[in-house]
């Protein structure tokens, strides 16, 4: 059965920023999407285990035509500090499909806010 942990103050979690918190021996990254939705994700990249708190929160780059880059979905993508792999903060999916037979999904934790505090289930 999932256990709920109080891990941060709601006011400390801001859109476009990463707040790392310890949960047992693991680190969880907290952030908010542009709409204000709270996100809690694993602090380790599913690719090679990089510490994601050194990565960045960004948007999804789109290219409607050659030479033209448009940023969409601002604050909904986390990029790994090592290889720059992109992960969709709404789903945990990588922006580019994983190599055949390899798991490449960023773990999402269930996160709730209550009375100004953030709770994560594990």
């Amino acid at each position: 059965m999932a256990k709920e942990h109080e891990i941060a103050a709601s006011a400390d979690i801001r859109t476009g920023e990463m707040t790392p918190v310890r949960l047992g021996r693991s680190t969880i990254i907290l952030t908010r999407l542009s709409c204000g939705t709270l996100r809690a994700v694993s602090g380790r990249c599913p690719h090679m285990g990089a510490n994601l708190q050194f990565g960045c929160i960004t948007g999804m780059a789109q290219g409607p035509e050659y030479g033209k880059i448009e940023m969409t979905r601002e604050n909904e993508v986390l990029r790994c500090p090592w290889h720059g792999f992109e992960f969709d903060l709404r789903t945990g999916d990588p922006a580019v499909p994983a190599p055949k037979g390899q798991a490449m999904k960023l773990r999402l934790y269930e996160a709730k806010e209550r009375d100004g505090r953030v709770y994560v289930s594990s």
Partner: protein
Amino acid sequence: MPLIDTDVHEGFAGIKDLVPYIKAPYKDWLAQGAWRGFSQPFAYTSPGNGNRADVQNEDGSASVSDPAMLKRDLLDEYNVTKAVLTGYFYPTGLKMQYDFASAMASAYNDMVAEKWLSSDPRFAGSIQVNARAPEAAAREIDRMAAHPQMVQVMLPIVDDIAYGHPYYRPIFAAAERNDLVVAFHHTVFAQGPYGMGLHYIERHSLIPLAIQGQVISLILNGVFDEFEKLRFIILEGGFSWLPHTLWRMDREYRQGRVEVPWIKKLPSQHAHERLKLATQPTEDMTTDQLLKVIDLIGTEDLLVFATDYPHFDFDDPDAAIPRSLPDGLRQKILWKNAADLYGFDIPDQHNRATAAE
């Protein structure tokens, strides 16, 4: 079993063979010997000076200009169902006098249509262009695409601006609107990463590297995305390098997609869907090794057979594509994949025979 040879080099005896076909003022230039044609910047070391030594005219001189001889030596000898003529006279190699080069491409195409394509329905043709003048090349593609035996545009491997550069887009647009394949073939001027080296053996070993560069340029500059219907074939570059190139590009795409977001698919997916590689020159792999390479490539639909007739590194179909391969795979390599690429309507004799039993 049907057999499709995707790389057959027709040619001419000499540059003056283009005189009847080329426009003024270049007709006089060629007739007067003002230009001597391309020559390789090295000496060939094979017994036939770059060609199979047994491909000779009656007087003993090398021949690539006789359709009857080619039909006898190749089409009839190997029971070839379709032979795609790819030339080896590539006006793109002239890095100046662009209009002259474009005119030579047109003249060569007319010569091929009159002398070669009309001589046998088994021949399919490649439209030669001067890629350095892309708009003129596009007009030439539009002109020659009307010929029912022309199946592709030939782009020789260049040593300067690679084909992914936007400069060449009019050529790809013309190929796409005319429903033609785009083929790439190395040249006497193709360079490896450090030039040609010091020896012919070095230069010949570097050819796949020159070709890999073009594949990388095409895919990572969005040519596969911008021209969604276009299909591509790489000739005479071998194929065992492809797994590495695809893995590398896929990895780079995962980490660097943000720079080139107009690329919508994994590079390997683009290649699997719309790239073919001709097998020649095969590298004397065992059947097990060949199966492993194909497994690593990721699809059985990518390789097509080629002999490279009349060049010295000719591949005999039975020796190069082992009979010990699974029959279905062997049929794909020897004809089905190429038939699919070019839209050749070739009855499946094997299945027809099976159905009749």
